[in-house]
Structures are given as structure tokens and as C-alpha cells.
């Protein structure tokens, strides 16, 4: 098998920093953030290992829809430093499939979707 599942750690933090124009989106995003995991207009994001440690969360809901390209900037705004310390070595999945933040930059994370931040694995 080839494809993202064989190389999940594409480094979602490597995309270029956002312009300040995106900050409005982020402010709104944070204002509408809810602790209710099934609230409308949100997607679920799961954190593991280093990502879970950095955010101090296993999971949370973030406002949807959100372009995939905006995921890393949004997380950086919510968790300053996460891009360089964590996201550069992480893959990201959307509804059970790995996505490439550059190739799939135009993909929209829809309400009800499930995103996961996938750090380097350590099974066995």
C-alpha cells in the first residue's frame, strides 16, 4: 500500500504563516467555541501524545466549516508555539483519512467532521 497512511507525518506546521486578515476568523472561532462536543457548526478534533500534552486536551470542538489550510494557523493562535514544537512532526486525518495540508489545502472541514492530529507513533 502506498499513500499518506504510509507516510502520515507530513508536518502540518510547515505551511506559511497566515496574514493578519485571518485573525478575524480566529477571534470568531474562539468566541463560538463551545465545551459541548456535539454542538452545531463544529467539528471534533482529537489530540494524541505530544499534541495532547501541549493542548492539555484529548479532544475538543472547533468551529466549522474551516478550510484545511486554516487549521494550523487556528491551532497556533489557540496554542501559541504548537506549530514549531508539535505540528511540524504530525500528520493530520480528516474523517479517517490522512490529508495533506498542502495538496488538500482547499478541502473544507465540515460541521460534524472528525479531525485527528497524529504525532509520530510508538506502538509495540
Amino acid at each position, binding site marked *: *500500500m502506498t499513500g499518506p*497512511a*504510509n507516510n*502520515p507525518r507530513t508536518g502540518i506546521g510547515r505551511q506559511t504563516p497566515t496574514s493578519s486578515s485571518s485573525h478575524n476568523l480566529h477571534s470568531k472561532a*474562539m468566541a463560538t467555541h463551545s*465545551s459541548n*462536543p456535539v454542538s452545531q457548526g463544529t467539528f*471534533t478534533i*482529537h489530540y*494524541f*501524545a*505530544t499534541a495532547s*500534552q*501541549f*493542548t*492539555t*486536551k*484529548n*479532544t*475538543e470542538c472547533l468551529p466549522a466549516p474551516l478550510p484545511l489550510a486554516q487549521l494550523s494557523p487556528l491551532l497556533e493562535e*489557540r*496554542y*501559541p*508555539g504548537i506549530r514549531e*514544537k*508539535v505540528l511540524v512532526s504530525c500528520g493530520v*486525518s480528516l474523517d*479517517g483519512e*490522512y490529508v495533506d495540508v498542502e495538496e488538500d489545502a482547499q478541502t473544507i472541514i465540515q460541521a460534524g467532521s*472528525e479531525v*485527528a492530529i*497524529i*504525532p509520530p*507513533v*510508538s*506502538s*509495540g
Partner: protein
Amino acid sequence: MASEQQQTHLPAHLDPATYPRTQHNPTKNIHLTLTYTPLDVNTYLAQTSSPKAGANVLFLGTTRDTFEDRPVSQLSYTCYPPLALKTLTNIAEAAIETHQLIGVSIAHRMGVVPIGEASIAITISAGHRGAAWRAGEEVLEACKEKVEIWKREEFVDGGWSGGLMLIGMRREN
């Protein structure tokens, strides 16, 4: 606070009550298990055994009491089943195709695994021993490289593995 929230709304993939998560493909004779209970070796051997198999290899990965010379007090594992089961399937299918195997079972334990107990069990059944040995090693290495499972080692002297250096870090929310 976040910690209260996550305790209240423990996501399903971290809730032991939603396990074991198993997947069986009788056609290809692939058996996958993610479980919070001790691994049952006899079950996995039975899953892949066959009158056509002349070789049955079992690998058990067990938890060590040290990591890089530091005494380990406890190990635990978490996983993301939607991806982990997919990746395990790909690994098992690739091994069957490459080595003409009769059956593959991969089981991984989640949560705390006491020192000396098995965290992963791989059984391979093949016509002959050469293929079974080689496949067993390949499957294990592929699992360690790819499967969406994370180990956390807590040390006797405090601290734990895989941790970020967070000292001095501050967050605003």
C-alpha cells in the same frame, strides 16, 4: 477547565468500555484486536491455525522495566482506532501477499500494561517456517513504524517518555 471537560466527555476512543475493537476478515484470515484487557495468546494462535500451516510463529512484545537505563514504573498505550485498524489491515494484507501466508493476527493492548506483560501479540501461520519467521519480523517492524498507537513510559524518578520540554512554556488560554 480543559481537564474537567475531558473527564466529563471522554472521547470514545479513550474509553475502555468501547473496547475491544476487533476486525476479522475470514477470507484473508486476518484478525485484528485492540483491547484494554490482557492479551489472550491462545485465542490469536487459534485464529490463524490451519491444517495447511506447517509453521506458526508467535511474537510477544512485553513491557520492560527500563527505558534507556531509566527505571520505568508504568507504561500505558493509547490509540486512534479508525486509523490504527486501517493501518493494521494494510500491514497484514501486505504480509500475506508478500509471503503467501495462511493467516495473520495482530493484537495490541491499550491502557496500562504492567511490567513484563504483553503489549503486542503477532501470530503468523504459513506453509513453511521461512515465510512465517520473515513475515513475523516484517509485521512487527511495520507496526512499530506506522500504527497509530502511542506509548507513554512513566519513570520511577519522575517524568515520562515522549514528553515535550514544556518547562517555562506559557499559554494564554
